């Protein structure tokens, strides 16, 4: 509307031109004075005419701007013109949104909500829809004010998935056939929340571009990181029985965000060392709470990360299972100062080996049955394919399969086991066959009498990852004499020279399905004789598989696949935030119980890393779309936008007054009146 009305500003010029065309003709006697006036300097008079015209145009412009009720701020300007049919608010509730700026009162999420309420109330819309990051489900709001009251707008421990939220918004627009839509995204643009590398972004961009109704994106970004913010994460909890009592061994990691430490207990240059990593030292009190009993340990931290290994916390001898919490003092982000954990007597690690080749099965049984810890009981059982139905799957952690790939009923049982979270490692049978499992099938055997060198393996994650001390597994020392090719979609974890996969992982929703292209049989490889790799591989798979058994579980908040199988609606809170709704327990960090089971829910590991998407990267994600971004900061009290029509109205009045002053005829001294005088 504003743009359409802008040509009206030229109205004074048009009137002036029309007026020029409407001249009158008169026969005039006093040409003497007219000619003299024409000869005089007309600089001021002309300037005055132009000024009058300018101020008339300004007055009209002021009137137009005042009527169109523009909004103004440092960034928004006139981008938010017109009233939207639907306004969709995408609210990032991830833990990092609880971060506060130094000296500010509110967190990023609180500030963002208040700013959204103010801004959206000003802009107006026919319909308000909230899509928050835990459920990604559209929820209609009566007004933006509801954002301040809704529990669904409070922070959680669950990470956000922006592509999924945008997908939900897109589905909503399509399903409801809404008109012009504004999508407001309130987020701190953390990399783990935005998944900028995901292929879904391209699909989303294309789908939004296909929409016929205009969709405008506004990103209310809080990209500031809080340097010096500490986060705590428990990496391992073990209960150990000692001779006369028991103790809990807790390992944890403290991570500090980039930059200088802002902790009040910071000591600068204590050591007098010039090394910047040592120059910043801070003592951090760490509080352990075991079912209400607190103890504290103060550590000296220098550098960006600190690992505390096996901190011993004494337990009563009969204290078999329970929960605990690790806390550090409050800092910029309150959400990463606590970490909950649960502990229990470890469940027996049972392995089932389905093998049709005894030389291959025996090393597997040995590797699986020997426990790495005296407190752990490990058992391995070799069965044939026919005995499969007799297995008590609820107690099995690992299935080692050295037989033709399962089919029919067997395949269903194995799939069911994997979906529960079980781990399966397939070894090639003597006769590969044509069956496939999880999209992968064996090919023919390849014999290499001189042995094939293992060219590469993934040491960063999964079964062949480096040890906790950082040392690599001796995978390269293995000698592979016979290997069976793999076909189908899988992720190679180790590759032979020439590119053939030695260890690969098939894609699954839960659980783990691995394929090892050779067997531990002496004729096939040296995996048995050089047994470190085989032992580590089997026990890592076994540990992962055992983690889903037992009565205690460590869960990641919002991890739908892991949490949903535990029926979170039946949970009751044992420890955690008091304001969490029972329906949202799965999204809030805490300890929850359901019957005999205990669940510790915590934020995802990626939340501890403060990686923020670069501005160009964010702009690239919305390339081609109508996108505006504003960077705000937590605790900002100034409104993002405000109506400035009063300013324009005042401008119009000033312009009119100036114009009137310029139009006033000059006062002529009456004493010199030329009429009726005589000498």
């Amino acid at each position, binding site marked *: 509307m504003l743009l359409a009305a802008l040509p009206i500003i030229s109205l004074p010029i048009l009137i002036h031109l029309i007026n*020029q065309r409407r001249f*009158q003709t008169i026969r005039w*006697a006093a*040409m003497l004075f*007219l000619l003299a006036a024409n000869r005089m300097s007309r600089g001021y008079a002309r300037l005055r005419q132009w000024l009058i015209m300018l101020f008339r145009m300004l007055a009209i412009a002021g009137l137009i701007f005042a009527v169109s009720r523009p909004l103004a701020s440092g960034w928004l300007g006139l981008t938010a013109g017109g009233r939207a049919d639907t306004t969709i608010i995408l609210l990032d509730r991830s833990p990092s949104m609880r971060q506060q700026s130094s000296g500010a009162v509110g967190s990023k999420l609180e500030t963002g909500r208040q700013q959204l309420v103010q801004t959206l109330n000003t802009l107006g819309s026919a319909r308000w829809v909230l899509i928050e990051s835990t459920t990604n489900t559209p929820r209609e709001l009566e007004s933006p004010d509801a954002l301040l009251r809704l529990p669904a707008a409070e922070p959680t421990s669950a990470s956000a998935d922006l592509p999924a939220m945008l997908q939900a918004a897109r589905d909503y627009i399509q399903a409801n056939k809404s008109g012009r839509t504004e999508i407001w995204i309130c987020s701190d643009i953390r990399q783990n929340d935005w998944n900028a590398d995901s292929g879904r972004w391209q699909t989303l961009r294309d789908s939004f571009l296909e929409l016929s109704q205009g969709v405008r994106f506004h990103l209310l970004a809080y990209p500031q990181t809080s340097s010096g913010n500490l986060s705590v994460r428990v990496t391992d909890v073990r209960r150990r029985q000692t001779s006369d009592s028991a103790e809990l061994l807790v390992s944890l990691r403290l991570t500090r965000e980039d930059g200088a430490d802002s902790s009040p207990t910071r000591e600068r240059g204590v050591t007098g060392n010039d090394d910047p990593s040592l120059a910043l030292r801070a003592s951090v009190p760490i509080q352990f709470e075991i079912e209400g009993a607190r103890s504290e340990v103060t550590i000296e931290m220098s550098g960006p990360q600190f690992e505390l290994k096996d901190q011993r916390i004494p337990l009563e001898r009969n204290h078999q299972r329970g929960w605990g919490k690790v806390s550090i003092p409050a800092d910029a982000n309150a959400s990463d100062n606590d970490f909950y954990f649960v502990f229990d007597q470890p469940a027996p690690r049972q392995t089932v080996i389905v093998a049709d080749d005894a030389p291959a099965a025996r090393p597997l049984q040995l590797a699986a049955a020997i426990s790495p810890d005296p407190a752990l009981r490990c058992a391995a059982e070799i069965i044939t394919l026919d005995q499969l139905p007799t297995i008590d799957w609820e107690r099995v952690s690992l299935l080692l399969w050295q037989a033709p790939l399962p089919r029919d009923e067997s395949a269903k049982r194995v799939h069911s086991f994997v979906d529960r979270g079980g781990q399966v490692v397939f070894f090639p049978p003597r006769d590969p066959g044509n069956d496939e499992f999880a999209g992968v099938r064996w090919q023919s055997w390849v014999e290499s009498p001189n042995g094939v060198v293992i060219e590469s393996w993934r040491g960063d994650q999964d079964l062949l990852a480096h040890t906790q001390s950082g040392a690599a597994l001796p995978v390269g020392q293995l000698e592979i004499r016979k290997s069976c090719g793999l076909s189908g979609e899988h992720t190679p974890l180790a590759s032979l020279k020439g590119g053939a996969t030695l260890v690969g992982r098939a894609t699954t929703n839960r659980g783990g399905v691995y394929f090892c292209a050779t067997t531990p049989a002496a004729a096939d490889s040296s995996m048995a004789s050089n047994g470190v790799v085989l032992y580590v591989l089997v026990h890592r798979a076994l540990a992962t598989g055992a983690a889903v058994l037992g009565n205690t579980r460590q869960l990641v908040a919002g991890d739908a696949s892991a949490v949903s199988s535990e029926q979170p609606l039946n949970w009751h809170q044992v420890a955690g935030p008091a304001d969490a709704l029972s329906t949202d327990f799965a999204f809030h960090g805490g300890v929850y119980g359901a019957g005999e089971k205990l669940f510790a829910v915590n934020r995802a590991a990626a939340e501890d890393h403060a990686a923020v998407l670069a501005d160009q990267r964010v702009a690239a994600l919305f390339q081609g779309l109508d996108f505006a971004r504003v960077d705000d900061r937590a605790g900002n009290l100034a409104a993002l936008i405000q109506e400035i029509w009063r300013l324009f109205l005042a401008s119009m009045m000033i312009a009119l007054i100036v114009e009137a002053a310029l139009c006033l005829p000059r006062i002529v001294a009456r004493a010199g009146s030329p*009429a009726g*005088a005589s000498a």
Partner: protein
Amino acid sequence: MIPDRRSRNFLDAQVLSRLAAVPLFARRPMQGNVSGRHPSPHRGASVEFAEYRKYVPGDDLRRLDWRAYGRSDRFYVKEFEADTNLRCCLVLDTSGSMEFGSNGVTKIDYARRLAATLGYLAVQQGDAVGVSCVAKGIVRNIPAKRNPAHLMSVFDILEHARPEGETQLVPVLHELAETIRQRALIVIVSDLFVEPAELRGCFQHLRFRKHDVAVFQLLDPLELSFTFQRPMRFLDMEGGPSVFAEPNEIADRYHKALRTYLDALRQVMLESAVDYHRVNLGDDYEQVLMRFLVGRTRGKGK
């Protein structure tokens, strides 16, 4: 010769009767050929005492002042002022610009009224009246005479005067200064749209010839106020180039030029001892003439 009795629309009998109560005086001595109301440069036989002078042989003994002889034993002759009539030359500007008039009365109409009324008043008191219509040159000219029939001719000339052509007032006034031989009252009725510096020479010429000069400058109210709402195209009434102007834009400078011109003209008139009357066409001509006549009674014979 029977005078023409037809009425003239530029004459108003009531105005004439009211103005007849005030005589028309010359401000300077006049050289008339008959006795009249105006002072003469010569001694005469009026009742107004002028001076004593010593008797010289040849003087008329009847003019000896015997009383003075009785008091001082010396012979003195008593002299009196001579009264004479005047020649009133009406100079009427009939250039094209005199046709202008914004409220129904043109300058030429107004000039006719002024000239005719003055002519009538002059003849009534025995003075001679002549008229010259001037534009680019002397268009019509009739010498001053004092009989009423001559007045009718003057009226006829005034009635038939048509404003046309450009103003060449300066050479015309010089010419009149030369052609009017004896002292006269020269009444110029014009809008005087001439540079004041050029007029200075004319008036000084007339003064040098011992004429008593009176000027009525006629200005229209619109020329003084210059109030226009729209852009105007001004056509010169005397055939000059036309001017297109935005009145709002030019009004200031117009008024400034007008003020400069009027100030300069007033200065010229003062320096040339001209009896100058600036007349707004909106004013009543009777009042204008009354001011003129009354003003002259104060400066009689100076």
